[in-house]
């Protein structure tokens, strides 16, 4: 297979047709304990509250929680997909960790992400994320600035 035969990235969104309030992406992710262990290894964050129920309970938590940074990391992916996969167009990304994502040993946790245009300007757009798990918002003030050609 020739690399040149396959476009590396999908098309960018056309900014001229975007309006504030448009929903541009949504996705659902299943987090199980395996995913938490994988993130621990990839990130180097080995805090045991992310893989041991006994340790989590000993510090007053109901059970193992997802790394906030895992939730933040996956929540931007629907936006990257909308950008045709060009992750480098994300120039600023912020969240507030408002509620922990409790990851049941058997059932895991479902994280739902919705991305809406929050603002448009000459340089691109601000995309606002709604991120929920177990019926609760888990990330607040989740904003992604993306660079888009005029």
């Amino acid at each position, binding site marked *: 297979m020739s690399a040149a035969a396959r476009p590396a990235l999908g098309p960018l969104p056309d900014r001229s047709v975007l309006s504030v309030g448009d929903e541009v992406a949504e996705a659902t992710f299943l987090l199980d304990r395996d995913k938490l262990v994988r993130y621990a290894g990839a990130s180097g964050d080995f805090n045991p509250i992310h893989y041991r129920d006994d340790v989590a309970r000993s510090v007053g938590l109901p059970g193992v929680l997802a790394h906030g940074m895992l939730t933040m990391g996956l929540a931007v992916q629907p936006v990257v997909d909308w950008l045709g996969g060009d992750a480098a167009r994300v120039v600023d990304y912020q969240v507030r*960790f408002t509620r922990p994502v409790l990851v049941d040993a058997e059932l895991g946790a479902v994280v739902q992400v919705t991305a809406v245009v929050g603002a448009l300007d000459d340089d691109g757009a601000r995309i606002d994320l709604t991120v929920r798990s177990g019926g609760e918002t888990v990330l607040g003030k989740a904003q992604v600035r993306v660079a888009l050609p005029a």
Partner: protein
Amino acid sequence: MAVNPGIEGKRYPPAPPYAVGREKVREFARAVFATSPIHHDVEAARAAGYADLVAPPTFPIVVGAALETLIEDPEAGIDFGRVVHGDQRFVLARPIVAGDELTARLTVTAVRVVGGNAMVTAESALTDADGEHVATSISSLVVRGDS
């Protein structure tokens, strides 16, 4: 006191350089469900105009090591078991790519005491081998007080 308020304004020495490797970019991308080919396929990344595999937007958290630096600083007096990540922001001046050698330098920008808890805000500025700014990771940590 959960945090020594005297660390506000403290600037730590630069961390040892972090070499961004392809396999770490791929491993981190898999861990955050990042499926774009520019994280996994060198040819795809180059075809898209990047020098090598592009790291996902939250990758600076791996390099910045803000929490580790603060925990290991005896002057800060922070108990790891009491820390909760409050807010996080990444300002990305250019994409991080495999082959970059990044140096992180942490500054404590604010210490606020709210109720019995303390909020520590720290900025980790990443520069490349040429000394150019690549990204800044801004973390706010909540340190729970004695209850």
